């Protein structure tokens, strides 16, 4: 049996082991590959930079722990940038677990910038209803949001009182892992109320968003962990995304090698026939 025939019967546990090494080794021994900045990510950065201090950014954490590895680093980077610019952050989630992950990032970063709950940021928790809820929300926040995630009446919070409708928002930033998520914000919130939308999505969702980037309905995009890593470079922050880039690079290279090997085996088998 020659090498190619042996490879064609490669045990999948060997593949699993190689992937595990490709993930773990660069984390223990970082390579520090250079991270380039793509246009969609730069546009998100520029949009936040262009907002006047005191503007309100609605941060919609539309993901759950399953996508935490890809989207949580982006959440931290965006929150950090907003606080540096003295923007106010209004957190909500279209997914039940999203707002808790938003809280995790807020509680970590807000004290560093002396930001206070109620005046500089609030979290109104999970909001069910998807598209229909967003249509109502843009018209009148008071109809939909009466309390924050802890049950505090929204009118008792300065930032809660400040947001009456979509007109009070400078930007919507959605961190989206699926449905409901970024498409709902673009189709129902931006189209109806004209609020600019930026997004961070899982890598698998990113290609579809280029349709909306091209049309201008989406201002900018952070696609997957790479997008988050680019943003960390822009805001000069060494976070989990930048650290994870080496692992992701090696795994991608490994996958490319697997694909090439698979096709060499295919050609070999065709040749034999």
């Amino acid at each position: 049996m020659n090498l190619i025939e042996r490879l064609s019967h490669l045990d999948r546990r060997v593949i699993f082991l190689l992937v595990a090494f490709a993930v773990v080794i660069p984390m223990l021994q970082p390579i520090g590959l250079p991270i380039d900045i793509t246009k969609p990510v730069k546009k998100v950065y520029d949009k936040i930079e262009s907002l006047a201090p005191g503007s309100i950014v609605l941060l919609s954490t539309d993901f759950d722990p399953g996508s935490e590895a890809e989207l949580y680093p982006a959440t931290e980077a965006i929150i950090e940038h907003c606080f540096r610019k003295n923007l106010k952050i209004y957190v909500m989630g279209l997914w039940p677990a999203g707002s808790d992950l938003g809280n995790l990032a807020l509680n970590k970063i807000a004290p560093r910038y002396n930001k206070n709950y109620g005046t500089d940021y609030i979290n109104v928790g999970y909001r069910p209803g998807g598209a229909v809820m967003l249509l109502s929300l843009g018209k009148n926040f008071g109809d939909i949001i009466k309390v924050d995630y802890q049950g505090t009446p929204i009118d008792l919070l300065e930032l809660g009182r400040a947001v009456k409708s979509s007109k009070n928002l400078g930007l919507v930033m959605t961190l989206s892992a699926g449905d409901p998520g970024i498409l709902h914000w673009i189709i129902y919130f931006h189209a109806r109320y004209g609020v600019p939308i930026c997004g961070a999505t899982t890598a698998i969702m990113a290609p579809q968003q280029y349709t909306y980037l091209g049309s201008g309905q989406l201002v900018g995009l952070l696609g997957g962990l790479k997008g988050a890593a680019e943003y960390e470079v822009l805001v000069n922050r060494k976070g989990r995304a930048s650290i994870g880039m080496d692992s992701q690079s090696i795994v991608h290279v490994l996958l490319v090698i697997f694909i090439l090997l698979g096709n060499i085996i295919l050609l070999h088998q065709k040749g034999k026939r």
Partner: protein
Amino acid sequence: MKRTLPLIIVAGSGFFMLVAFFIPSKFFQDTSQTFQNWYIGVAAFFVFIGILNLVKINIEKIQRKLRDWRYCYILLFFLAFTMATGFIQGREGKAFLYMFYNFQTPLGATMFSLLAFFMASATFRAFRAKTPEATILLIAALLVMLGRIPVGYWIWHNYPDLVEWIMTGPNTAAKRGILFGIDLGLISMALRVLLGIERSYMGGGGE
């Protein structure tokens, strides 16, 4: 009557919402807002239906001793325990948050991460250039995979621009075509529902 009444409600409310979207009068806007608020209330109730369904399915599995039925005990125990901590201590309760951040978050991330291993195995066994179309897809995938990581930039500084062109050009063109198709299908399906032609949502097929 059992089928006619739901059809009248669906058609009436559906056409009303359609008309209200284009007419900015107070009556239409206020009424459509009320309908939307009702929907949000119903949507919130779906969570309870989901929980009831989950409990029902798992109890049935235990009773019938179906495959992996013992795991159902773990699921039901943690469901009850998490709900109890949430109700007793509130959303900011120590036990509730501890379980969310230390159980649910890492477990959820782990489940999703396992995909990387199966994906690697699948790329080796299934991603093969058997036809000209598959070959084009494969070449595009290889280019994008390398261009979407720092290695691409490291190989050639203009490589990410090439990938960006693939994403904004061919990718967007294909996606838009697919989206137009989906949206036309959605519009025709919505019309079928509003006109009472499509009745499968009431259960029991088209009749």
